[in-house]
């Protein structure tokens, strides 16, 4: 109201004053000043700015006066008014008229009762600040009585009002008039802003306790003492203090740089109690400076981030409330000045009064200063955690304050969070959110590497579990978009996605973390993960691929593998360098077409391929052949490169074991076919017997191995995997289950580092089997050759006898004998070769068994029992006996 232009309210007010009192401008100066002050201090209305409400009130008022016709007339007029667009503040005008309205039936004579009171009371009332109520006279009114007189709007205005009195009825006793003379509302900006008013807190400035404790004591506190010379008056100190409250040096109280506090100038003559009180009050200035410095330094720093900005905003808000309080105090002081020195006025400001009034603001400022100290150097989620930790206090006021700040501070975090879990978007320029994204990661590693949790930025009111879920939700959405190229709008994935959350929601979520927030996250998590799994299963056949791995790479499809081996055998015995991938691919296709594999999904068969491992000199086809399965796109997230490497290793092992079975079958077939033929050569029976024994030993071994691999390794792990995949809630579960499956298969197939020895023994056994096969083959070859020669000899003999010649000449017979002799001489050589083979083989098996016995894996120990079920090897190998014994002694329950 400083500027005075033609249309300024001041000019209007003045003319209004003249008009109503009917006097000239000079005469109404007094009233005019009063009017300006009242209006100036009541700029914001306490009532709802709602035209409808006001008009309803007017109607009600008219009805109360039994003027129904007038009420109808009013509504008519009001409607007319509404059609005009001239007025912007219709409610305001209406409200004014409502409050000026008088019941025409009541005598309006009461005005006269005020009589001469106004003339002197007006100036006093004009400066009556909020603390008007502290006059002793007003104590005559009970608290309840007065509070009943408060308009209902006070409670909802959001500003705790003070000293709001309406006329206390028409009766005119001097006392009630004194208090009643102030129909004006003057209010202290209650420090808690509108946000706190909803909380069931006691008003910051409780009316009656203040009255009661201050009221009676006030007169005594203002006893005028005889002044010493040069002593500073209390009023001057109060003025100083008010400056100090804002961090400005006063005349007597100054900031002392070396002590970092406000100090009263030492030269000033002052009584001790005043000095003491003022230094206690000066603390507020120090606290204010601290908070102010922080906000000033940070509020322009963009890199401080959104969370930091909102923290500064919250601090600003608090400071603003504090300034409002100060401005009220200032205006009070000003009024006193204009009055001249009125030392005895009970309502004037004193240091003691300030001490009491400033108590609550001080506590608040202290909390803020502590917060500022604690939050130094923190940002983002860390800052929110720091604020949150301050909320764990028993003081309800402090808790409410911190809670409010927290709700503001966490608002950006929650905004990030909702953006992330509903849209999958990360708009975190200043790295404040607890989900970090690495822009260098390509789409194929998106799931594994792109997003990570920033541990330090997780606010303490969000648990680790929730944070992980949040990460997963957003990751799933991004995965769907970028890898699966799924363009479903996010709203369809999570039906409850209303990402526009207001700060009120934020505050609610914080106070009710267990319920709504958790539920929201859980719902989003559940929906998104389910949708992702659906897409993967439906569009990308994840489960089918998993089964295909089992069937092809882990040899689950028996007929196909057997047929493939049959077809490949002639190719694979050749040296590895002479193999060609295209030939093998053709064979693979033939095998697929000839077996049940042909009924498999084309999508899967398309990915099946042959791969040749690196060739080292001397390798045969068997060593380098491998099946391969191409994975790409989304399923490559589950079947990563490492996973495929593992699969190839396992396939290699299984393929080798399968080949042993296949070889032994061949050996057995040879034995069966040749047994009858070679019966005629009794000298061979010993060797053959040896062969049979060794072969059956090997068959037993390989059968047990196959049993172990098939049932104890593959089927068990597969069953576990399948159960887990069925129960999986998100992709991470599936990946984890799959990795676990592969790990267990690898370690149980003796492919991990710890069982390298075992694997080497096993390889040696396999080599022995191959060697035995070639030895037996050569044995049969020479035996069969010999047999045909003998048969030819006999045939010739018979032929000649039929022709009437000598069956054999002596010469021929000698030759024949010599040949037989020679053949029989090779038999011991064969026998010894076989014996050496047997010996080697048994040695290796025994070593293998020893290793099995000492292994930590229970299933491997059981395998050793199965391999040596009749304690054949145990009888030969002392170490086996020893280890068995110790084992028995150690765990008798197991055996």
């Amino acid at each position, binding site marked *: 109201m400083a500027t005075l232009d033609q249309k300024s309210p001041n000019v209007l007010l003045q003319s209004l004053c003249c008009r109503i009192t009917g006097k000239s401008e000079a005469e109404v100066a007094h009233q005019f000043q009063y009017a300006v002050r009242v209006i100036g201090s009541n700029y914001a209305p306490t009532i709802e700015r709602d035209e409808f409400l006001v008009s309803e009130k007017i109607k009600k008022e008219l009805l109360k006066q039994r003027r129904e016709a007038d009420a109808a007339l009013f509504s008519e007029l009001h409607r007319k008014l509404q059609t005009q667009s001239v007025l912007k503040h219709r409610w*305001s005008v209406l409200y004014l008229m409502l409050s*000026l*309205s008088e019941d025409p039936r009541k005598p309006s004579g009461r*005005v006269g009762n005020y009589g001469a009171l106004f*003339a002197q009371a007006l100036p006093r009332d004009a400066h009556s600040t909020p603390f008007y109520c502290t006059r002793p006279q007003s104590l005559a009114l009970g608290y309840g009585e007065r509070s009943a007189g408060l308009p209902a709007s006070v409670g909802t205005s959001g500003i705790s009002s003070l000293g709001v009195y309406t006329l206390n009825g028409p009766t005119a006793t001097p006392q009630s008039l004194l208090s009643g003379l102030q129909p*004006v509302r003057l209010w202290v900006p209650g420090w808690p802003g509108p946000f706190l008013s909803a909380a069931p807190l006691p008003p910051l400035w409780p009316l009656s306790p203040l009255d009661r404790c201050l009221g009676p004591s006030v007169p005594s506190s203002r006893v005028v003492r005889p002044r010493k010379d040069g002593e500073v008056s209390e009023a001057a100190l109060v003025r100083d203090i008010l400056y100090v409250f804002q961090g400005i040096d006063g005349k007597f109280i100054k900031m002392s740089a070396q002590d970092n506090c406000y100090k009263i100038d030492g030269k000033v003559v002052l009584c001790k109690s005043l000095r003491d009180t003022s230094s206690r009050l000066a603390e507020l200035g120090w606290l204010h400076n601290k908070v102010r410095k922080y906000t000033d330094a940070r509020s322009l720093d963009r890199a401080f981030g959104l969370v930091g900005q909102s923290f500064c905003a919250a601090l600003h808000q608090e400071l603003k409330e504090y300034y409002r309080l100060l401005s009220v105090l200032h205006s009070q002081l000003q009024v006193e000045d204009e009055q001249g020195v009125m030392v005895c006025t009970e309502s004037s400001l004193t240091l003691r009064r300030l001490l009491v009034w400033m108590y609550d603001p001080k506590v608040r400022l202290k909390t803020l200063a502590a917060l500022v100290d604690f939050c130094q150097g923190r940002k983002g989620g860390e800052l929110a955690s720091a604020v949150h930790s301050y909320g764990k206090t028993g003081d309800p006021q402090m808790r409410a304050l911190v809670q409010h700040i927290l709700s503001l501070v966490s608002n950006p975090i929650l905004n990030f969070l909702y953006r992330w879990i509903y849209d999958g978007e990360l708009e975190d320029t200043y790295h404040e959110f607890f989900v970090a994204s690495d822009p260098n990661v390509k789409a194929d590693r998106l799931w594994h590497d792109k997003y990570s949790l920033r541990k330090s930025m997780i606010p303490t009111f969000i648990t680790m579990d929730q944070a992980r879920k949040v990460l997963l939700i957003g990751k799933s959405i991004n995965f769907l978009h970028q890898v699966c190229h799924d363009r479903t709008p996010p709203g369809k994935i999570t039906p409850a996605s209303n990402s526009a959350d207001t700060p009120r929601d934020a505050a609610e979520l914080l106070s009710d973390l267990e319920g709504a927030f958790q539920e929201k996250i859980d719902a989003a998590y559940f929906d998104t993960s389910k949708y992702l799994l659906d897409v993967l299963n439906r569009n990308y056949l994840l489960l089918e691929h998993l089964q295909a791995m089992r069937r092809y790479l882990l040899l689950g499809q028996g007929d196909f593998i057997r047929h493939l081996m049959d077809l490949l055998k002639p190719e694979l015995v050749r040296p590895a360098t002479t193999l060609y991938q295209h030939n093998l691919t053709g064979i693979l296709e033939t095998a697929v077409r000839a077996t049940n594999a042909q009924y498999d999904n084309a999508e899967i068969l398309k990915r099946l391929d042959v791969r040749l491992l690196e060739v080292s000199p001397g390798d045969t086809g068997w060593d380098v052949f491998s099946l391969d399965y191409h994975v790409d796109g989304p399923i490559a997230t589950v079947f990563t490169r490492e996973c495929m490497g593992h699969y190839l290793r396992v396939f290699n092992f299984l393929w080798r074991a399968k080949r042993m079975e296949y070889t032994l079958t061949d050996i057995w077939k040879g034995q069966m076919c040749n047994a009858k033929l070679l019966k005629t050569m009794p000298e061979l029976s010993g060797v053959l017997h040896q062969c049979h024994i060794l072969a059956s030993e090997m068959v037993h071994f390989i059968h047990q191995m196959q049993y172990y691999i098939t049932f104890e390794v593959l089927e068990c792990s597969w069953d576990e995997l399948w159960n887990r995949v069925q129960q999986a809630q998100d992709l991470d579960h599936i990946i984890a289950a799959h990795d676990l499956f592969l790990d267990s298969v690898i370690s149980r197939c003796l492919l991990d580092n710890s069982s390298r020895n075992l694997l080497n023994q096993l390889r040696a056994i396999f080599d022995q089997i191959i060697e035995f096969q070639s030895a037996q083959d050569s044995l049969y070859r020479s035996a069969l050759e010999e047999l045909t020669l003998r048969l030819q000899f006999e045939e010739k003999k018979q032929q000649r006898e039929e022709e009437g010649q000598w069956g054999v000449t002596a010469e021929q017979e000698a030759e024949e004998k010599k040949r037989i002799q020679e053949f029989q001489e090779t038999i011991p050589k064969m026998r010894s070769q076989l014996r050496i083979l047997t010996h080697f083989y048994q040695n290796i098996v025994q070593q293998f068994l020893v290793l099995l016995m000492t292994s930590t894996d229970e299933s491997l120990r059981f395998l050793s029992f199965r391999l040596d079920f009749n304690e054949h090897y145990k009888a030969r190998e002392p170490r086996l006996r020893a280890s068995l014994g110790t084992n028995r002694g150690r765990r008798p329950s197991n055996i």
Partner: protein
Amino acid sequence: MASAANANLNAVRETMDVLLEISRLLNTGLDMESLSICVRLCEQGINPEALSAVIKELRKASETLKASENSTN
């Protein structure tokens, strides 16, 4: 232009008439001039509560003065 200004003037006059009627209904005791001052003040965003309080006080003051003048006379 002139007709627009005229229409505007008419609207203002009509509005004031309606307001005066309401004011009469409610027995506010405001005459045309004070009402127009009040309306202008309200249009500038003055708090109507405070304004009404001021008016009441002014009335009381003038009554008192009149009464005291009367008694001295």
